[in-house]
């Protein structure tokens, strides 16, 4: 089957993720959408790797997963601390600083 379709899928996932970031209010969900985007990237990488028949893409995918994991750690730490001090994880509530 033509690997290009995977690319289309990846693009689709990426767009969905981006849309989620733009639409959802809850910081956690937003962050999950970012993760989705990262995974879209992984899919694309793997697809290309397959297409070119070399391993770079797949290696990068592994790196990406690690990075994503690290991001989760940092991100959740920040979001949770925010949640605890405000009792809300809505990104829209957090707007002390503007203009």
């Amino acid at each position, binding site marked *: 089957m033509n690997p290009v379709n995977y690319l289309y899928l990846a693009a689709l996932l990426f767009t969905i993720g981006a849309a989620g970031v733009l639409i959802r209010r809850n910081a956690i969900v937003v962050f999950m959408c970012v993760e989705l985007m990262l995974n879209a990237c992984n899919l694309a990488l793997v697809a290309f790797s397959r297409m070119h028949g070399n391993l770079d893409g797949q290696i990068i995918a592994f790196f990406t997963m690690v990075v994503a994991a690290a991001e989760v750690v940092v991100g959740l730490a920040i979001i949770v601390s*925010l949640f605890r001090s405000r009792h809300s994880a809505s990104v829209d509530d957090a707007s002390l600083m503007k203009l």
Partner: protein
Amino acid sequence: MSASAAVAVHSLWTTAAEPAAADRIGAPAIEYAQLAPTLIVVGAAVVGVLLEAFVPRRARYHAQVFLTVVALAAAFAAVVALAAGGHATTKAGIVAMGAIAVDGPALFLQGTILLTSLVAVFTFAERRLDPAHHGHRVDSFAAEAAAVPGSEQEKAAVKAGFTTTEVFPLVLFAVGGMLVFPAANDLLTLFIALEVFSLPLYLLCAVARRKRLMSQEAAVKYFLLGAFSSAFLLFGVALMYGYAGSVSYARIADVVDGSVSDITPALAQTMGNDVLLLIGFAMVLMGLLFKVGAVPFHMWTPDVYQGAPTPVTGFMAAATKVAAFGAMLRLLYVVLPGLRWDWRPVMWGVAIVTMLAGAIVAITQTDIKRLLAYSSIAHAGFILAGVIAATPDGVSSVLFYLGAYSFVTVGAFAVVTLVRDAGGEATHLSKWAGLGRRSPLVAAVFAVFLLAFAGIPLTSGFSGKFAVFKAAAEGGAGALVVIGVISSAIAAFFYIRVIVLMFFSEPKPEGPTVAVPSPLTMTTIAVGVAVTLALGVAPQYFLDLAGQASVFVR
């Protein structure tokens, strides 16, 4: 444009290095010597973590400060040694299996980053600005970042004299990432380095001792948007990999130029499809533009600059820009010179919008930190003008500008930490009224920094601005220079507004006090002023340095 021509132009600012055999499987050969700076810093960071774990709380602060300062100093020494050893020019090369380039720009920027971080770290370690709580000296960071603001737990932590000494390892990690970022020689390293220096910064933003809510909010915004942008960057990486079948800069460049020998059918197919390349490039570029805070990817800047603890802001504003522009230079000059005719117009647009928007919006700011944030946006625009030049002078001018700018920034934010009232730093401009009457010296110093930002002659700001504009003009971007000049005229307005405020308006009775800092912050400010004036009056030496360092290895 034809491949040969591309190569010709290309060779303007690159020298060929013996091809690093990336895909040969075998024990990786790591040139530790040439990676020394990064290794020192990262190693020290790890040690710092261990210190956190094992050293008793009393001693941590001193241990960490000592470790950090020594590490940064040592790393800087290593950079100097490398440069002296000719690795910046003759012996420049690709190391770590083609992952990292050790060449002029890389070393110059690493040196700059290390020095800036060093002076910035002094402000991290400053503990004299606020009166001691319960007999414990306090710095700018929360006693216990995890504790809810205003909670009993926090009070207890303060009582116990906790301090977030973790910031020092975090800074070291960030610096480590920044050192790699401009030296990254393949897209993967680029991405990893980006994350390595971003994540600690997200955390650092969150740990302010005063105004913690704002601090946390800043962190969240920075983090979400940062992650968002890095996702874009990663997708861009994926697409470019898809296009070239490799993430190595050299390889991609060849593919772009069409000067590759071994063309597999797949490669032939993807090579034909420039859309991959262009979209990929655009997305990677977006990731970098986000980091340098170029319009329209700048919107995090004011909020984060304002919310983050001021020492962090200073560090971030200075070092991040250096690293990110370094990476951008390498990407544009090494990977995509063949695409010059595609990216230059786009960058033109970005530069123009950035310069103007930064300058214009700054006019109506009322908070000094936000003001500086917008000024940093405008400066990003100026630097972009130099990047666009696409000439060796362009590179050197950008390098010079980055060096000059980062010290002014660190110094300026260091001064901001000094002006305090009951609520911590008094960052609202109205509070600065009549500062010149209260403490002429501090006001004068800050005026010097502002004048440098405004690019008044005899300050480093002018030398830098002149350098980039000159490069841009020679690169045929005359219109850009004119717009740059106009926007600096607009920008001048608000810098001057602050000066007027400080010197010509009567001080308010309930105005802020100017804390007398410890030698640490004094050093920071002193270095800032010294460099500002030195680069303003006699920039030749540093221009030479930047000039010699302006050749990328490929």
